[in-house]
């Protein structure tokens, strides 16, 4: 039965090709916009999350102290490394602390060089375990810090040039002497250690930085601690559980206001913000669907009017009101459905094309996401819009009095 009504509806759609297509256009433009926007949005979201994942690592936990006000840089937090190592599932703990210090080079022949420079205290594990955060150090001369080094430093290329420092030179940081043991290659990427960004810290510009052991930075600058600590969990460990236990351990040890964040915690607000923007854009695009729906309604009213006599005939040969109703509903639903399918296809092409163009012209890679729920949802939604728009015209058709419909000229 439904199948027969379906083919009858198909027939009347196809005999009015031009009008049907024009109506379909009204639907598919809206669906195209929605699908393209959401696909791009999802791609952007996945790209960003992926990049965060690459820097931060999904098996990483960050500990910061609750900022005094939202948005403010968190204050220092001092944690004993052993305390965190004591938690089961913890593989490594690391931190870095960036400060601006008064630095001078003790010159033998020349006039002394001095300035306010960035000094970063690096814990040993930061280099060995959290390489993506800090980037790879490519040495030009000498070596980088090892666990046994004290009062040693290695310098970014820029700062070494500025201080005219060479291997073995002695520099003074906040009146404390350090021996230069390494000088890095010029860093073309400029910004490297981005870890602090998640804790509200500016990224470390390697080229302009003096690196010293973390343990010494407490000595040079007032107040102990760092802005953030990073914890790597054992392979296969439950990150959320480890994070919770760290929290418990910190509370037990009397470290106040510690916030333990996992990758999830960092990724979630970013996702939420992106989704809100996406939702807003999609809602705007969806307004055009409303216009498309009105188009379907208009087409269907015209169809009912045009086919009044046909409706009368169908009733005369035994069609029930419900048959006529379904016939017109199927017809408008089909228009919506076809619009939806075309819209999804064009929308996906559009978003893929845009991602390609962005890669091609701006060299920024945005992933393309083909979301099955989005596709199914868009097609279903356009079918519903078509059906809803056909509701009133179909009702009118089904309620026509057979005699009056037959008399209609």
């Amino acid at each position, binding site marked *: *039965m439904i199948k027969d009504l379906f083919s009858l509806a198909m027939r009347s759609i196809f005999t009015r090709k031009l009008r049907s297509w024009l109506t379909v256009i009204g639907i598919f433009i809206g669906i195209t916009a929605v699908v393209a926007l959401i696909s791009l949005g999802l791609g952007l979201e996945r790209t960003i999350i992926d990049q965060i994942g690459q820097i931060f690592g999904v098996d990483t936990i960050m500990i910061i102290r609750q900022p005094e006000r939202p948005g403010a840089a968190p204050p220092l937090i001092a944690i004993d490394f052993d305390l965190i190592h004591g938690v089961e599932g913890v593989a490594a703990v690391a931190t870095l602390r960036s400060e601006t210090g008064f630095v001078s080079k003790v010159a033998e022949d020349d006039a002394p060089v001095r300035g306010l420079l960035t000094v970063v205290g690096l814990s040993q594990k930061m280099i060995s375990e959290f390489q993506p955060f800090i980037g790879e150090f490519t040495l030009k001369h000498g070596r980088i810090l090892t666990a046994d080094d004290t009062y040693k430093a290695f310098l970014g290329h820029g700062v070494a040039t500025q201080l005219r420092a060479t291997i073995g030179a002695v520099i003074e940081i906040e009146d404390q002497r350090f021996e230069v043991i390494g000088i890095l290659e010029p860093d073309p990427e400029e910004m490297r250690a981005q870890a602090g960004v998640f804790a509200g810290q500016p990224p470390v510009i390697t080229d302009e930085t003096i690196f010293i052991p973390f343990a010494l930075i407490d000595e040079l600058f007032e107040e102990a601690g760092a802005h953030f600590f990073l914890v790597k969990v054992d392979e296969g460990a439950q990150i959320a559980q480890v994070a919770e236990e760290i929290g418990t351990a910190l509370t037990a040890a009397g470290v106040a206001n510690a916030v333990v964040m996992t990758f999830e915690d960092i990724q979630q607000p970013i996702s939420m913000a992106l989704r809100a923007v996406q939702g807003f854009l999609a809602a705007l695009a969806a307004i055009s669907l409303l216009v498309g729906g009105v188009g379907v309604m208009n087409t269907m009213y015209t169809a009912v009017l045009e086919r009044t006599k046909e409706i009368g*005939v*169908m009733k005369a040969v*035994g069609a*029930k009101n419900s048959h006529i109703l379904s016939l017109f509903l199927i017809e408008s639903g089909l228009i919506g459905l076809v619009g939806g399918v075309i819209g999804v296809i064009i929308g996906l092409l559009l978003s893929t094309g845009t991602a390609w163009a962005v890669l091609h012209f701006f060299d920024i890679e945005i992933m393309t996401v083909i979301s099955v729920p989005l596709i199914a949802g868009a097609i279903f939604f356009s079918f519903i819009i078509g059906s809803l728009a056909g509701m009133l015209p179909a009702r009118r058709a089904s309620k026509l009095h057979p005699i009056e419909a037959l008399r209609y000229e």
Partner: protein
Amino acid sequence: MSLIKLREITKDYQLGKTWVHALRGIDLTIDTSEIIAVMGPSGSGKSTLLHIVGCLDIPSAGTAQIEDIATESLNERQLVRLRGEKIGFVFQTFNLVATLSAQANVELPMIFQRVSRSRRAQRAAELLAKVGLSDRAKHRPNELSGGERQRVSLARALANDPDIILADEPTGNLDSESGNTVMELLKRLKNEEGKTVIVVTHDPEVAAFAERVITLRDGLIVKEKLND
């Protein structure tokens, strides 16, 4: 046996403040397997009468019985059902669905009675053969002559094997030869299958095919004549 029994049928239409009395008290009994012609001037109520017999419309007053079923006691669904099962219509203007082939037009009433696809196709082919149009099954109405269209619409009227065929000026748009073909077919249906046929016509030649001719004027039967 009387198949159709009309008693005191009236039908009034309101047109603004005035009333049009299309039928003003029709008493008519029609037997099974009878062929009857309804004549009368334009506006005398012939079509209205046919619509009431065909359950397309309900009388303002009076009772109409079809096979002892009083139609005024039926709700809309039941009327539709009765119409679909017992009655076939043939119209002056054919009223075929323009987008459907002859075959599909004949199948249409069977769709609404939920006849299976294969059964439908078979029956439609049989009916088209019966009206002599087997070779026109795939044609659209606009590819057929008037006489052929009317035969298709006759085949469609027969789709659900109704007991009653109601034809409203079936020859009105046809030349006399095509008209005669249609009337011959109706007569054969009556003779061979025992159908009851009511034909509205202005044409005495067409009325001559009937066994009984009634004449309406101003909504009343003014004359009733038996042909021999």
